[in-house]
């Protein structure tokens, strides 16, 4: 559920097919740099209506982002 939403937002941003975005996909492979990852995270905050603090988390893969969002939604 979270993965689907995340994949959809990423796909819209970089104009690709959402089904190609998997948990293990690295942002770097998608041509998304580390600041763009935060831009994505901030759109997720609006999408999920919650503030998501990084608290030192490193976001390298889609799974890292999904995990962080899940931890805040619980």
């Amino acid at each position: 559920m979270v993965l689907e939403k995340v994949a959809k937002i990423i796909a819209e941003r970089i104009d690709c097919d959402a089904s190609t975005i998997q948990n293990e996909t690295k942002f770097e492979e998608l041509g998304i740099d580390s600041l763009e990852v935060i831009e994505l995270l901030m759109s997720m905050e609006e999408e999920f209506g919650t503030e998501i603090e990084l608290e030192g988390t490193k976001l390298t893969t889609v799974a890292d982002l999904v995990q962080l969002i899940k931890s805040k939604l619980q």
Partner: protein
Amino acid sequence: MSFSVLGTGMYVPANVVTNHDLTKFLDTNDEWIQQRVGVVTRYISETETAADMAYEAAKAAIENSGISANQIDLILAASISGERVSPAIACEVQELLGISCIAFDINAACSAFVFLLETAAGFFARGYRNILVIGAERMSRILDWQDRNTSVIFGDGAGAAVLTAGKNYLDSTVTVRGGHDVINIPNFMGNSPFFKGVPEAPYVQMNGQETFKFAVNAISQDIKHLLQKNNLEMDQIKYIVPHQANKRIIDMASMKLKIPAEKFYVNIQKYGNTSAASIPIALDEMNRQGLLQRGDLLLLTAFGGGLAHASCLLRW
């Protein structure tokens, strides 16, 4: 009683460093730096100290203000990259100007210019007449020039303003919220025989992702807050003058706030991030280019190490 801005001044070192120049010793390239940070050139000191730059900016601001140096009754400066812990840059400027007012520095990193204005407002409330405020940085002193993530961002320079008792500092918001691990600039460690820790390298260390998120939220919160509190619409504001930290921060804040990019005054492409000097340099450029008319409303918004952020509503 608060104050009005009487005059502005700035100074940058003679030495211009392009992105291409950096590729000679760093694994980086012009496209990456421009896309990632928005910097094209920066001025990097070869010989000028932060106090030298502060003095030049101060002289220009005093000349622009039309008052004489000895009418100034307080000099407040801010820097995180000066050559000396003591004397303060403000004291060095006072000596170079040959005047006898009180002078001291504050440390609020990249948010410092708004902290300077807020501090000055307190002194105006105590009856001071003319205050010189200066942000001066020789950031090149405190960078690890082998770290391509930080060294490409910053530049050296100074900006100053002469303030006089008046009513144009309309409102402000100041926040400090912890986060020493997000932006950390360790100081020089002496040779204490009793020291038991591990000395940290005295260079700018920054968590780029955390800083980016903090900065965008800081600008967005402060601007919304000041507009709402003062019953203002965005179209009543002539310019937002943000701390020039990274073009991407400004772009993202503009998107988040749904405020057109043209409202934000941006000059990071030319100077890089000059920390405490970025807002007064921007103000001086705008002033001398004739972009500001008396009565124009400006929002100055600054954020950085602390973590801290501070913004104000200023009538020109």
